[in-house]
Structures are given as structure tokens and as C-alpha cells.
């Protein structure tokens, strides 16, 4: 690194992670909060060991410093393991793989209709009989495996993504969930233990000379500081430990729980296909099961061929400006390219074909109907828009268009107007000429809904149009759960909700980065 000569693979790693010790350790880009966590834990423990432990060891039992030390070492070890190891990053696809996948989805596409249509960006697979939708990650150029999600802060797809935890300064995923869980649990024990010891210390002092409790506090002020820190932090830690215990026993991730992935919706039965069957085997499997090795080979030697695989040609795909999130400015770099020339290029899945292979039925969404007619969309949902605006919390969390399937009926007229031949002509827009001026044929290729700031109006109406009543209820529920979780645990998390899945669309996925603050 200092010699200016690249030798190891971590130095060419495409994500945002930072590496230390020549690639042995890795962490997420912003580690400020992580350092605060380390400082709080070591500081409080140091005060406890210096001021309380000595007295208690002499007057009560020597077991107290020993238990304290064991808990402290275990907590710190789990914490460092959580934050400094690979959370389960899925390496990005090589050019050839990306092209192959692209070709495959285009083949299924052209077999169905003579006109060119953008290849589908979702794929449905059956996992133990349960339909799971795999989304294409535009940054990593892969269909994300089930349970994986793209972390917008680290810019990687992470297997069994739980959440990005700034307190530990890393994503929590398949490889470090067990460390994270043990960290939370041991920290809860440590906090309770230190609190109890500090209070016991104060009580013993006051009993000794039969003085007031306040006099004891005056004699040993660090004890009361330690007790207060522990008292205030222990509730959120206990809440979090309880929540993650529930998740572990049911083999879910925070991400899935908040999205409500396995709750039955719209009368469809839904179950968790990843569960091992019962509470015990879920816990064992998650906490003691086989640990997948890191797949990014960060210490491997960087070869010419690896560099060639990694090097991507400058993509000519349009840079997609992201939907304007109201809270976007709150965090980090936001490179939002707002563009008046770009119009929503909306298309929907209309039909699905089934392609079966090797036991798993893969439904490839075979055609998506381009619907690049914003005016039509906007007319339809003026009424709903009003309703939507009255739910500001939805605006930030659930600006998604996850459930596509319902719309072919409403939009069939516009779809027929837009579904041209190949290459697609500029869509004919009847009503709103000013909007149509901005449309060009490129919109039909856009993989995402492209919304500029100027089109906020259209944007909000689109959101409405996309959400059925049930979706809205679900998202409200999700927002509430998210808030509850954050109120109780004070954890600041960048959860990958459906809306965030879209954030990986652009070449710079920080565009859609959203953090939910406490």
C-alpha cells in the first residue's frame, strides 16, 4: 500500500470497507460509533475494576474480579470479532458471469415476444416450497441469493444480512451473527454484573460505618458513575438481547422480521423456509453450526488475471438518480444526480413463465411491460396521493415498488401505448405534452423508476399506485416495528427494506443510502 504497488486482493476490493493489518482485519467505512462503544465498555469496566473490585475482593470474595474479568474478555473478544471480520460478503460477479446472466435473462425475454423489453430484474425460486423473490443487484451484478441483501453503507451484498450495526461498526451477517449475538448477551450480563457490584459496594460502605447512602456516594463517586452508566444502558441491551434471542429461536434476521417476510399476506400462507424445525436446533444451528469461511480471499495475491476479471468496462448504463428521500442529507456523501430530463420509466411485470430445472422451479419473470407514461400514472392516483401524504413515516421508509403484480389491469391502456417495437419509439403520451417532451426512448431501458426532484409530484403518486391497501398496512406495521425496535434498543440501523433494495441500482449505491436515526 505504501510502496504504491498493489499486491493483495483486499487492496483492490470494490466495496467501501476498510482493511487493517494487511487485510487480516476489515471493518465498515465509518468507525466513529464503534470507537465510542469500545470506549464506553472499557472505560466503565476500568472504573469498576479500579474502584469497586478492590474493595469487593477484600471484603466479599475474590470471585468477583475473576467473573468480571472473564465477562469483560468474552465481551470484548466477541465485539472485536463482530466488527473486524468479514460479515459474509458475497463477492461481486466477474464480467463474464454478469454477461452470462444478462444473456440468459434476455434469452427468456426474446423467446416470448418479438419486441425488445428490458430483461427482468427479479427471479422467483422455490425454497422448500416457499416462493422467494431474488432481486438483481446492479452493483454486484448478481441475483442476490435468498436472505442476502445489499448494505448501502459498505456497498456489498452480505449473505444472511441482518442489519448494519454502527455500534459494532460492521454489517451483521451470516459469518458474524453468532459473534454479535454473544456480544449482546455477554454485554447484558456484564452490565448487570457491574451494576450489582457497584451498588453492593456503596451499600457495604454505608453499612460499615452506619452512614447515609449519600455519604457512601461521596466516599466513592466512581461507583455511582459506573452504576448510572450501567443502569441506563442495560435496558436497551436487554431489549436487544431479547429481540435477538427471539430472532435466533425462529431463525429469522432483523431484516426479514421487519419486512414481515414470513407473515402471511393477502391470504397467502407463508412460513419460514430456513427454519430448522424447532427452537433448539435453530439456536444450535445459528450459534454453533458450521462457520462459512470468508469468500472474499482478501489476503490472496493479486494477479493480473484477477485484475482483468475485476476491471469493469465503463458502463454506458444510465446513472439513475435516486428517489429523493427526505432525510438523505443527514448522512454521509449523497451524490444525487437530479435531472430534469429524466422521466419515470416505469414498467411492470405482466406475465410469468415457468422454467423448471433440477428440482427447483425457477420462475423467470419473462416480460415487463414498459409503462413510461407518467401522466397516466399520475392521473390515476391523485386521490390516493392525498392519503399517502398523510403518512410521512412511509415516505422515508417504504418508498418502494415491491409488489408489482397487481397493476397490469389498471395500466393496460398505457401499457399498450408504450409497448412499441424494437427499438422502442418514444412512447406516445396523449395527455401531458410537457411531460412527454421529456420522455425519450431510453426510458424504456431504465431498470428503476427514475425520479428527479422536479417530479416529486409524479413520484408520490407513483408510490401510491404501487401500494395496495394491504401493502400500506404492512408498511405501516413495519415502520411501527422499526420505530419500536429503535426506541427500545437505541440501535441506529441501516436496514435494507424494500426501498433500499433499489438503492443498489445506480453505479453509486450510496445514492439511496438511508439511515434511520434514533
Amino acid at each position, binding site marked *: 500500500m505504501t510502496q504504491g504497488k498493489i499486491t493483495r486482493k483486499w487492496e483492490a476490493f470494490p466495496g467501501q470497507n476498510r482493511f487493517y493489518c494487511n487485510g487480516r482485519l476489515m471493518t465498515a467505512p465509518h468507525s466513529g460509533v464503534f470507537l465510542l462503544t469500545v470506549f464506553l465498555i472499557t472505560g466503565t469496566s476500568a472504573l469498576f475494576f479500579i474502584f469497586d473490585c478492590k474493595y469487593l475482593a477484600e471484603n466479599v470474595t475474590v470471585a468477583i474480579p475473576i467473573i468480571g474479568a472473564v465477562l469483560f474478555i468474552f465481551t470484548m473478544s466477541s465485539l472485536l470479532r463482530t466488527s473486524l471480520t468479514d460479515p459474509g460478503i458475497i463477492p461481486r460477479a466477474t464480467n463474464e458471469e454478469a*454477461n452470462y446472466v444478462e444473456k440468459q435473462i434476455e434469452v427468456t425475454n426474446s423467446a416470448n415476444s418479438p419486441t425488445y423489453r428490458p430483461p427482468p430484474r427479479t427471479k422467483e425460486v422455490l*425454497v*422448500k416450497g416457499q416462493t422467494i423473490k431474488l432481486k438483481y443487484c446492479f452493483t454486484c451484478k448478481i441475483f442476490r*441469493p435468498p436472505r442476502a441483501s445489499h448494505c448501502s453503507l459498505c456497498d456489498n451484498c452480505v449473505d444472511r444480512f441482518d442489519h448494519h450495526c454502527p455500534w459494532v461498526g460492521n454489517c451483521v451477517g451470516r459469518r458474524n451473527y453468532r459473534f454479535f449475538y454473544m456480544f449482546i448477551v455477554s454485554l447484558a450480563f456484564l452490565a448487570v454484573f457491574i451494576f450489582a457490584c457497584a451498588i453492593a459496594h456503596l451499600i457495604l460502605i454505608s453499612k460499615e460505618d452506619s452512614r447515609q447512602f449519600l455519604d457512601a456516594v461521596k466516599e466513592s463517586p466512581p461507583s455511582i458513575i459506573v452504576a448510572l452508566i450501567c443502569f441506563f444502558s442495560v435496558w436497551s441491551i436487554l431489549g436487544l438481547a431479547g429481540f435477538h434471542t427471539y430472532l435466533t429461536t425462529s431463525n429469522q434476521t432483523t431484516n426479514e422480521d421487519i419486512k414481515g417476510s414470513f407473515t402471511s399476506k393477502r391470504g397467502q400462507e407463508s412460513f419460514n423456509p430456513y427454519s*430448522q424445525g424447532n427452537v433448539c436446533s435453530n439456536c444450535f444451528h445459528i450459534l454453533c453450526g458450521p462457520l462459512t*469461511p470468508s*469468500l472474499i480471499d482478501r489476503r490472496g495475491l493479486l494477479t493480473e488475471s484477477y485484475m482483468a476479471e475485476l476491471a469493469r468496462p465503463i458502463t*454506458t448504463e444510465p446513472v439513475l438518480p435516486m428517489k429523493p428521500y427526505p432525510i438523505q442529507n443527514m448522512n454521509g456523501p449523497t451524490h444525487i444526480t437530479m435531472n430534469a430530463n429524466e422521466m419515470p420509466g416505469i414498467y411492470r411485470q405482466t406475465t410469468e413463465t415457468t422454467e423448471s430445472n433440477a428440482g427447483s422451479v425457477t420462475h423467470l419473470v419473462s416480460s415487463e411491460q414498459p409503462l413510461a407514461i407518467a401522466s397516466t400514472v399520475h392521473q390515476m392516483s391523485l386521490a390516493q396521493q392525498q392519503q399517502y401524504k398523510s403518512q410521512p413515516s412511509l415516505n422515508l421508509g417504504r418508498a418502494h415498488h415491491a409488489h408489482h403484480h397487481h397493476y397490469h389491469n389498471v395500466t393496460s391502456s398505457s401499457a399498450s401505448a408504450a409497448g412499441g417495437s*424494437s*427499438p422502442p419509439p418514444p412512447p406516445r403520451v396523449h395527455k401531458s405534452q410537457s411531460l412527454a417532451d421529456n420522455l425519450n426512448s431510453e426510458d424504456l431501458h431504465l431498470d428503476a423508476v427514475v425520479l428527479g426532484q422536479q417530479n416529486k409530484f409524479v413520484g408520490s403518486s407513483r408510490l401510491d399506485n404501487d401500494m395496495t391497501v394491504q401493502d400500506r398496512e404492512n408498511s405501516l406495521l413495519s415502520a411501527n416495528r422499526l420505530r419500536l425496535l429503535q426506541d427500545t434498543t437505541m440501535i441506529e440501523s441501516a436496514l435494507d427494506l424494500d426501498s433500499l433494495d433499489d438503492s443498489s441500482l445506480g453505479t453509486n449505491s450510496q445514492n439511496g443510502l438511508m439511515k434511520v436515526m434514533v
Partner: protein
Amino acid sequence: MSNHHNNGARASETEQMAQSQYLKVFVQRDYSEGTVVKFQTRFPPELEGKLDRQIFEGTITRLNSYFAEAEKATCSTYCEGCLACLTAYFIYICKETHYEKCLKKVSKFIAEQNERMYEPRGLKLTDPSMRGLRVLEISCLDRPPNV
């Protein structure tokens, strides 16, 4: 921003991007049994005439059994996990895990298959752990990338 992006541009871009030396075929994962690593046994049509179906299926089946072994919930893997937890995970610094041993077996198996079966037919398998266990890459060493 002027992104002239029509069909023609897309096609030429695809051509430009496919500047690899060989034709490569990618066998995708089969998720029907959950997130356990398992590859699809469907025969890729590109390999028709170059490789016997039986050989391909045999390779994939063996490969899948190695991964099944790596992720199987046995007593010894659970003990390994519990032991690691009891040592505050310090054991991972010095001891190789069961999964890592299995991945080594996979690498060995791939090398052996390449030598015995695939290279004589002008094909080459890439170790799936080099591709994040996401795909099995088969390169056709005697075919140009464009089909």
C-alpha cells in the same frame, strides 16, 4: 446528462464487455433445499457434444455432497462451535474449521476432475470458492467467447 442508450448501444456494449478469451458457462445454485450450497444438475446446452451428461452430473453430485458434508449439522461441528464459543472465539485464530477443511477437499476434487476429465476435453472447471460459491464456472478452452 445525455445517455444515449438504445438497443444498438446496448448490443455493442455487450460485445465489448464480452472480451474474454474463452466461452464460459456458469452453473447456477439450486436453492430448493434452502441456503445450503448446491449446484443445479441441469446440463448446460453449451456443452452439448463436448461432455457426457453423466460426467457432468457426476461431478456436480460429488460437489454437492462435499458441500452438504460441510454444512451438515453433526455432533462434531456443533462441538466445534461450542468449543469456539467457550474459548471466546480465540480458537479460530489457530484452528482450521470443519468447513475450511471441506473447501480444501473441494479444491482438490476440482483439480483432480480437471486433470482427469475436463482438460482432455478442452474444458476447465473453476473452484467455486473463487467465485463466492455462487456459480460453478466451466471454461471452454477451445472456443471463442462469441457464440
